[in-house]
């Protein structure tokens, strides 16, 4: 094989490995309508199930009459809690150590709760059947406010009180009240109180991070098919963690795990909505077992918004102390967390408030204390991490608002205050006051780059002029300059402290090299639009020297893929990406031995060069990986098994800590509350960059979801517990029309402990974007005395702020 004409650069380029903006291989099917989503799955004799849902937020159920529904043509069965109880399936465990009703067991706790499951020949008959089920409710007092819940005599969950009427212990320790779920503490309480008591300056603020929803374009759903002949259950579904779902299904159904096959087909967005286990899955499985036919369940948009997986709903109270020059000395944070009727958060078991304890942010804060109280209310369960690692968006919002409030207290520029307090480059690895060890960072470099890129001083000068003009009556528009420096914590995580239901949060990759030099790799993760088939092939291309175009990536089928914990919390690249690199290195190690044999030299005398092994000092003597692959299957090599395969299960030694510096420049019409984003600059540091184009796409998407949350997206309830934002008319999902132009930029600070230095990026823009948009709104009104106004900053709330500040007088 002579290829002298081909330069080394050409060989690198032809691999389309790491750093290349390779086009997404998935898009050919997605853009042609050839994706295969769960609702595309159609099986012979398939039935359709759907729920009778509660119109009330809190009510006793005195009777369910299914007889009329059974008369509806096409309706085959109606399941209620009474049918599931003998199987022990009327309740199911949640990922948070709580349990949740699969079908209402005597009462309902939130509007839209699953009351009965109608199984019919098609979804039209099911819808008619639902109308015909007669449920008698007796309304109970509704509590939608967690503070009221903690005072109220009303017992939301009968299982929270012991026989003597006092609160029983919850999954995370004693309860303070029957509607209380847990207290989670972190850091040093007394020292923090002392530091704050003795501080020169203290800023105190309360903020509400409102309830919202991930709202993926594709809602949740599944198809359950029980084959009674071979005893095998196949479950297709919108699962962000198919292997964990298999284990959970096995544990709760008693079906042996080898007899369950879970398949996540193409998934139309997850954002945390598809991590948990939902009543629809359980009911579909039971219905398939009962009827012997495949059963499909698909949420409609209202079901999705009202019942599966809300996000946020954190009432946060902070105190931050500093010297009068602005050096932060302490931070205290208390959260009242509204979890709704069941605690169904999808957090690692030991972290009932997720990684809220990253709330010291990017700052060197010597002393800190965090306390979170989880509370039941009459709202839907969830508490998922919507496009963020566990509760990281809440944490970053909290600290980035507290910094702004402290800047006001100190009468200091908010950029300057950040610079004074950033953890310095030489302090990494940095042990934070609330326990985490930040692996790497260079915040000052990123920040300065951002400030220069937007001409920060120029913006402030313009803003000063604008304020004067406003006061002189020359304009009715204010200018807001929103700043954010975020530090994320992703890639959960080290098995020693991260598990879900006892399953360690490692991940995996298994590679098979085919004789002709192409390959298939399977992972324990599952793409929901992130482009894994594109980027994981790039990692492998660089690691094993075969072109990315010759590598198939497969995920989501538990019968074929190695066990892994799935995709959420930006964990795919940090964990499964690392497993991929490590498995690739095993392939390479064996390839080296084969190459040495073929080249008739000692193993140590060959070295890897892009797509081949060459004899050290004699680059004209080489074997390409393609040649080596063939040899692995057709040569009898002494001491080496035939074949070329590897598997790696990767337990990360630490989390990764992506960071970024964002700036938002916003015009605000004080008379109408209308906002206009003039500029948005996003600098991200996700360590090693695998595919810059995919990174940019992730940034654009995450920023757009951040804009949504900051400026209007919410799940709102009235006092009766009715959901006021159950359709896309009122639930804000931005379109191209509402989205500004984004300027993206980057620095590269590789993770020191990750095999390829990559940190994860899918969620950074959301985590950093929300406080940045919100800070822009706050900043516009800072000169008029605003300290804190809660999101979402929709027109009327901004108008209210202006009104309360006297700007309409």
């Amino acid at each position: 094989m002579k290829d002298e004409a081909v330069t080394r650069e050409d060989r690198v380029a032809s691999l389309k490995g790491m750093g290349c903006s390779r086009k997404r291989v998935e898009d050919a099917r997605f853009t042609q309508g050839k994706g295969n989503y769960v609702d595309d799955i159609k099986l012979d004799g398939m039935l359709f199930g759907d729920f009778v849902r509660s119109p009330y937020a809190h009510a006793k159920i005195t009777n369910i009459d299914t007889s009329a529904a059974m008369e509806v043509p096409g309706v085959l069965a109606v399941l209620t809690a009474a049918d599931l109880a003998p199987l022990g399936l009327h309740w199911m465990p949640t990922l948070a150590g709580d349990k949740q009703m699969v079908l209402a067991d005597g009462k309902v706790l939130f509007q839209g709760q699953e009351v009965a499951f109608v199984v019919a020949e098609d979804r039209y008959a099911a819808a008619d059947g639902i109308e015909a089920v007669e449920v008698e409710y007796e309304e109970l007092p509704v509590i939608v406010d967690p503070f009221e819940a903690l005072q109220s005599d009303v017992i939301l969950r009968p299982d929270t009180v012991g026989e003597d009427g006092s609160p029983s212990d919850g999954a995370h320790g004693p309860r303070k009240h029957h509607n209380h779920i847990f207290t989670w503490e972190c850091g040093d309480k007394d020292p923090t109180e002392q530091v704050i008591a003795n501080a020169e300056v203290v800023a105190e603020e309360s903020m509400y991070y409102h309830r919202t929803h991930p709202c993926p374009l594709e809602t949740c759903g599944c198809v359950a098919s029980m084959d009674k002949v071979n005893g095998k259950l196949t479950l297709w579904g919108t699962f962000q963690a198919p292997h964990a779902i298999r284990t959970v299904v096995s544990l709760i159904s008693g079906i042996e795990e080898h007899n369950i096959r879970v398949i996540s087909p193409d998934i139309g967005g997850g954002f945390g909505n598809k991590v948990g286990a939902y009543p629809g899955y359980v009911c579909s499985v039971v219905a398939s077992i009962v009827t012997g036919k495949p059963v499909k369940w698909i949420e409609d948009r209202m079901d999705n918004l009202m019942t599966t997986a809300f996000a946020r709903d954190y009432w946060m109270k902070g105190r931050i102390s500093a010297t009068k020059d602005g050096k932060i000395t302490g931070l205290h944070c208390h959260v009242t967390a509204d979890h709704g009727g069941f605690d169904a958060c999808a957090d690692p078991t030991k972290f009932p408030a997720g990684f809220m304890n990253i709330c010291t942010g990017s700052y060197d804060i010597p002393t800190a204390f965090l306390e979170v109280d989880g509370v039941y209310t009459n709202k839907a369960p969830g508490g998922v991490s919507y496009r963020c690692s566990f509760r990281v968006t809440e944490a970053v919002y909290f600290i980035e608002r507290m910094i702004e409030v402290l800047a006001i207290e100190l009468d200091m520029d908010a950029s300057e205050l950040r610079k004074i307090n950033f953890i310095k480059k030489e302090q990494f690895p940095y042990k934070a006051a609330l326990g985490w060890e930040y692996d790497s960072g260079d915040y000052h470099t990123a920040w300065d780059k951002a400030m220069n890129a937007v001409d920060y001083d120029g913006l402030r000068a313009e803003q000063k002029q604008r304020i004067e003009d406003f006061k002189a009556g020359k304009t009715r528009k204010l200018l807001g300059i929103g700043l954010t420096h975020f530090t994320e914590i992703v890639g959960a995580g080290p098995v020693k402290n991260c598990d879900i239901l006892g399953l360690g949060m490692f991940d995996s990759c298994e590679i098979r090299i085919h004789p002709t030099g192409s390959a298939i790799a399977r992972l324990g993760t599952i793409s929901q639009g992130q482009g894994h088939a594109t980027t994981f092939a790039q990692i492998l291309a660089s690691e094993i020297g075969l072109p990315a175009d010759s590598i198939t990536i497969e995920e989501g089928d538990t019968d074929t893929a190695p066990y892994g914990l799935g995709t959420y919390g930006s964990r795919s690249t940090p964990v499964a990406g690392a497993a991929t690199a490590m498995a690739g290195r095993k392939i390479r190690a064996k390839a080296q031995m084969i190459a040495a044999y073929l080249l008739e030299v000692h193993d140590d005398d060959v070295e890897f060069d892009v797509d081949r092994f060459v004899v050290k000092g004699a680059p004209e003597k080489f074997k390409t990986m393609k040649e080596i692959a063939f040899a692995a299957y057709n040569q009898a090599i002494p001491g080496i098994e035939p074949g070329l395969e590897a598997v790696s299960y990767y337990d990360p030694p630490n989390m990764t800590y992506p960071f970024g510096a964002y700036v938002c420049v916003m015009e605000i019409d004080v008379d109408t509350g209308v906002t206009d984003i003039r500029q948005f600059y996003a600098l991200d540091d996700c360590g090693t960059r695998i595919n810059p184009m995919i990174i940019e796409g992730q940034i654009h998407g995450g920023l757009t979801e951040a804009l949504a949350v900051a400026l209007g997206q919410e799940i709102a309830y009235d006092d009766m517990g009715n959901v006021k934002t159950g359709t896309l008319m009122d639930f804000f999902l931005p379109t191209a029309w509402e989205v500004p132009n984004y300027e993206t930029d980057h620095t590269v600070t590789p993770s020191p402990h990750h095999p390829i230095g990559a940190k994860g990026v899918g969620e950074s823009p959301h985590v950093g974007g929300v406080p940045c948009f919100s800070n822009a709104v706050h900043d516009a009104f800072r000169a008029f005395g605003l300290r804190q106004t809660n999101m979402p900053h929709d027109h009327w709330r901004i108008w209210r702020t202006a009104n309360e500040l006297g700007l309409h007088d």
Partner: protein
Amino acid sequence: MIPASFEYHRPTDMAGVLSILVEHGDDARVMAGGHSLIPMMKLRMADVPHLIDLQDVGGLAGITVGDTITIGAMVTQSDIILHDALADAAPILREASLQIADPQVRYMGTVGGNVANGDPGNDMPGLMQCLDATFTVVGPNGERKIPAREFYEAAYMTGREDDEVMTAVSFAKPVGGHAYEKQKRKIGDYATAAAAVQIVKDGGTCASASIAMTNLSDTPVYSAAAGDALVGTSVDGDAIKAAVSAMLNDIDPVEDNRGPVAFKRHVAGVILARAIERAWSRA
């Protein structure tokens, strides 16, 4: 989100439509673009056992432009936007239509459906009141004409009888300056507040003005008093203030997810002031 079952009828002429309406009474309803009716059916807020699709009924989709402008009931919002002669003669129609819903909805949504629907959120009823349009309906007893300013009684209650079908809207070719100003939360949203304004200028003073507001009451609000406040003035700040306060006496907004009443009243004033200024600058 699945409607109750229904019979689907697709007659090819008006006689066919009317005979089904007469036969089934309350149980029958016509459908134009379906973009208001179908969502209501899917939410099971409208139960329509007999759905009569107007798509194949001829003669309802024309636009004629002269001293009088006539627009057939089945003309879509998109047709309006694309019709250059109409945009020259009555530019407020294109300006308003471009602020309705989104392009996909505008390909389906019709003028007849928009004005017949009776939803206070629809933009065309207010627009038609501003233009002093007349609606033509036909029923078993023949044709009749109803002024837009008298058509709306309450939310979803109009002067049209259940067995009547709207065939066209018509109005005199507007003169003077125009503006359609609308505040909404996002594309595809109904108005937080919207104002339709036509102003005629004579020398430096306002000779006549017509003002109608949208989504600020359970019906569109034609505010004669607001228009009168401008007549004879130079449409300066004081006159605009007077028009705004007259308009505020005529609206009656309710709180919803768009905001509380005080906010809506404030925004209504701002939107109307802007609409007047723009219309005056074009007059």
